[in-house]
């Protein structure tokens, strides 16, 4: 092969080092208005009064947009996957997180835009917020979402994601030891160096050109089209060159509102989030609360796993049901555990809605279950490499929801780092492969879970 496998230079490498790569804000859009948003200062409040007329009348203000201006204010970005909409583009009757946008203003410069935001009259009636996912299920917890405090629209009306496999009670009966722990990774920022930004130009033929930093041109175009109730060819998304995304630029955070302002003002409009807005108002990686209880034998077999997951979705669902589903499919990680009892909830809290970030759904479960494996090794007095190698997926093993592993590489990657570290392993571990289980590596309790790799 010539091109594939070769260390060719980056397609845009020379452009990057000569300052010629064109990011969204590098497009010259003369006369673009500045956008600022009126954002909620409260984590949970009703909107008692909203009057933007003083802002609209202000000199230098080109347009003000509120929920009343949005053709379809609530649109489920993943409605094609059966996840209905819950999040308004602009808040209408209430706000559910600090920073939630209520109105946007386009003005001739940044100062006027900020002054116009201040001139919008708004009154709140403050309500009790909910911040702790563990309290969401209490009968007297504040109710903060019209669906209840957790997402109820999984298949067949399930209010949680469920995985069941084998016989969990038998596994826990047979175990020599049960090890239980709680794992809580934090929300973090995607933190691209380029903040959320877009520029929208209304064209002479009635179309809108949208210079977007989205990670997903067509996905974002679909979102804008749905909110505006227009066919796709009303919009030309220009982009594909993004200053970092890491999952945070799938949210379509600026494009729809800029389009509405551009349409209302008939003028080009630009919205660049400040770094402060990026830190405080953009979506984050979700915090997760995971409790794992593993039934293990004293010679290091993981017989079964009970797990509950509370995913902190923040104020709205966004992509969380998708994330929790992916999480559930991978909650055994790189190992074959034949008896499973998993329940996962998408829980609402009054914080910034959480969204995708690198590893969405699986980063959390890898943290929980891998730390847990190390604890098990410690409790059993078994070498942590050996514990993992023994339980590692092999060809023909099946995943939590019955999918056959056709070519897992867990064993060689563990052996590679053991080798690199000079970590001694007994001969029977050093020579392990991913071939289908047999002999000592196929105890009775792993027989029922086997599948046929040819069925893949």
């Amino acid at each position, binding site marked *: 092969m010539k091109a594939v496998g070769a260390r060719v230079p*980056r397609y845009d490498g020379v452009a990057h080092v000569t300052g010629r790569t064109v990011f969204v804000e590098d497009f010259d859009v003369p006369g673009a208005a500045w956008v600022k948003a009126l954002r909620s200062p409260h984590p949970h409040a009703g909107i008692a009064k909203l009057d933007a007329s003083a802002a609209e009348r202000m000199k230098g203000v080109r347009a003000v947009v509120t929920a009343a201006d949005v053709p379809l204010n609530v649109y489920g970005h993943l409605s094609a996957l059966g996840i209905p909409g819950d999040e308004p583009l602009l808040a209408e009757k209430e706000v559910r997180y600090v920073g939630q946008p209520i109105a946007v203003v386009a003005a001739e410069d940044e100062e006027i835009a900020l002054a116009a935001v201040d001139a919008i009259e708004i009154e709140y009636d403050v309500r009790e917020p909910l911040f702790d996912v563990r309290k969401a299920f209490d009968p007297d917890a504040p109710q903060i979402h019209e669906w209840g405090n957790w997402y109820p629209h999984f298949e067949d009306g399930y209010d949680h994601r469920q995985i069941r496999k084998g016989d969990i009670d038998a596994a826990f009966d047979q175990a020599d030891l049960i090890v239980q722990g709680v794992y809580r990774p934090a929300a973090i920022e995607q933190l691209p*160096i380029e903040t959320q930004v877009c520029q929208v130009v209304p064209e002479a033929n009635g179309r809108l050109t949208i210079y977007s930093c989205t990670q997903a041109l067509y996905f974002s175009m679909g979102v804008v089209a749905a909110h505006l109730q227009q066919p796709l060819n009303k919009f030309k998304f220009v982009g594909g060159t993004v200053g970092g995304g890491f999952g945070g630029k799938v949210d379509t955070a600026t494009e729809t509102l800029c389009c509405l302002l551009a349409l209302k003002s008939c003028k080009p409009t630009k919205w660049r989030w400040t*770094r402060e807005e990026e830190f405080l108002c953009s979506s984050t990686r979700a915090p997760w609360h995971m409790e794992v209880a593993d039934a293990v034998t004293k010679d290091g077999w993981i017989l079964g796993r009970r797990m509950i997951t509370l995913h902190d979705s923040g104020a709205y669902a966004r992509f969380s049901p998708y994330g929790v589903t992916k999480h559930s499919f991978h909650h055994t990680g790189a190992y074959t555990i034949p008896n499973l009892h998993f329940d996962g909830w998408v829980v609402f809290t009054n914080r910034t809605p959480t969204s995708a970030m690198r590893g969405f759904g699986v980063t959390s479960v890898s943290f929980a279950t891998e730390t847990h494996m190390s604890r098990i090794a410690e409790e059993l007095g078994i070498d942590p490499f050996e514990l993992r190698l023994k339980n590692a997926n092999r060809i023909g093993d099946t995943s939590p929801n019955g999918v056959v592993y056709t070519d897992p590489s867990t064993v060689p990657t563990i052996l590679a780092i053991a080798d690199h570290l000079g970590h001694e392993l007994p001969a029977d571990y050093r020579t392990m492969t991913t071939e289908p289980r047999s002999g000592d590596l196929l105890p009775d309790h792993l027989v029922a879970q086997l599948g046929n790799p040819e069925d893949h």
Partner: protein
Amino acid sequence: MSLTVNGRTHEIESPPLTTLLDVLREELRMTSPKVGCEQGGCGACTVLVDGQPRRSCLIPVGALNGVAITTVEGLGTPEDLQPIQAAFVHHYAAQCGFCTSGLLMAATAYVANGGTDDREAIAHALGGHVCRCTGYVKIVDAVAAAARGDEFDLSTTAEGRYTTMHTGGDS
């Protein structure tokens, strides 16, 4: 007031409290310095002011009478890259490219001021620049290579110092 940028003198119309970053990008239409934070926290706006790296988002242009500004536009061209630029290409020091301009200017000053290829010294000198994509390793590789005066074959990229490949299946 007048401002000399990359050897050319411009008459500046923006008010004196306008940041140098906004003057460069909005008035002079030089887009290489980027807006990353406007807080002085990320370094993406770094340009050279009389040869020293400064955060252009923090400097009011009125304070800059009589200085010489250098931006990436004043380094090399695609046909004639300066060594630091060639180093960044060959060592794959830029992924999304958004932090690259600021780092190039800081690295240019580091090398011009006699900076060595010592990795700790480079990390200490450039540590105020935030990059989210690269993990910094190849940035340090590139700056070290430029400090040493390495020659660069731009038809390929450098192999990382630490990787081994096993091809064709499990062990």
